[in-house]
């Protein structure tokens, strides 16, 4: 493959990752079902390791193609942006479904719940304690990532690094607090539709925070190896969009489930 082309498109090379990734996904799925039925995690672990190794190496290849081989022309980058926009849109609808389930159950609570929300016997979290702190943490992380973005736009390496580092720390702090909150929870996922909607919605949000933090750590490491400049940082922008999305989902979770729902 050479860079000598008479067009602006990126003709991709043969790659093992789509096939291996697909096999990893299938093994993870099968392994998870096996875990549910037989309490045996080996196959699931093999699948997840395969998937993690595939994503690491696939995206490593993409950063090489973009940053070192210069294959990400402005036209290609436009396609990447649209891909990220469509992906985040699909994620929005993923969360819409959990909010739908929540409002379906809470706006007109069935008599089995005592016709009230939170249901009889459910002790809920105080929304003004850890959840409010978490709201402040995520809002601050939105500030720090914007700081990092503007620093990168101005080729300010040090402040870009500091902004990214702070954002990652705030993301990890949020995850730690959510983990603590889960451990202290007076209700479980099996405690009525309250527990089900609460843990499915906040749990998937937590998973997305972990994914977003991983994305930001990847950006941090790429920044440390000088991948980003004022006109080459699409990966960082994608991470920032994703992080803002996770932030907005939390605001909706906080307002509706933690606050209104208590």
């Amino acid at each position, binding site marked *: 493959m050479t860079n000598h082309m008479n067009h602006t498109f990126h003709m991709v090379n043969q790659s093992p990752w789509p096939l291996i990734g697909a096999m990893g996904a299938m093994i993870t799925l099968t392994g998870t079902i096996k875990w549910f039925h037989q309490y045996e995690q080996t196959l699931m672990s093999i699948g997840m390791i395969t998937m993690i190794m595939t994503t690491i190496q696939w995206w490593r290849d993409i950063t090489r193609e973009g940053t070192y081989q210069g294959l990400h022309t402005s036209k290609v980058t436009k396609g990447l942006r649209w891909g990220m926009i469509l992906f985040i849109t699909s994620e929005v609808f993923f969360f819409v479904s959990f909010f739908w389930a929540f409002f379906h159950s809470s706006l007109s609570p069935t*008599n*089995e*719940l*005592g*016709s*009230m929300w939170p*249901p*009889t*016997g459910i002790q809920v979290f105080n929304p003004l304690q850890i959840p409010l702190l978490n709201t402040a943490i995520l809002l601050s992380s939105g500030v720090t990532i914007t700081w990092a973005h503007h620093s990168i736009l101005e080729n300010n390496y040090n402040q870009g690094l500091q902004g990214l580092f702070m954002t990652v720390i705030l993301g990890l702090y949020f995850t730690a607090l959510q983990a603590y909150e889960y451990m202290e929870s007076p209700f479980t996922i099996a405690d009525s539709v309250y527990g089900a909607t609460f843990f499915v919605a906040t749990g998937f949000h937590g998973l997305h925070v972990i994914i977003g933090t991983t994305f930001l750590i990847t950006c941090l490491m790429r920044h440390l190896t000088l991948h980003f400049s004022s006109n080459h940082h699409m990966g960082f922008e994608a991470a920032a969009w994703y992080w803002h999305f996770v932030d907005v989902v939390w605001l909706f979770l906080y307002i509706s489930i933690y606050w209104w729902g208590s």
Partner: protein
Amino acid sequence: MPSLAVMASKKEVPQELSTAPFDPRFPNQNQTRYCWQSYVDYHRCRKLKGEDYAPCDYFRKCYESLCPFAWVEKWDTQREENRFPGKI
């Protein structure tokens, strides 16, 4: 045409039939909530006014008309075992 005496003998004893009246709090075809609220109100009323307070029976008549027997049996058991979800 039968005689008046025969017609009179076939006359049924007048029986008073009644059901729960329309309650604008529960305007839907599904009357589950009306049933449930009447059950809760009946027991709340008796707790507040004493078991011999006759007006409470209004709520009992409502839930007896509206609720499936199985539900009432289930809720009675739940109340006995102190695990009924409604506030009484």
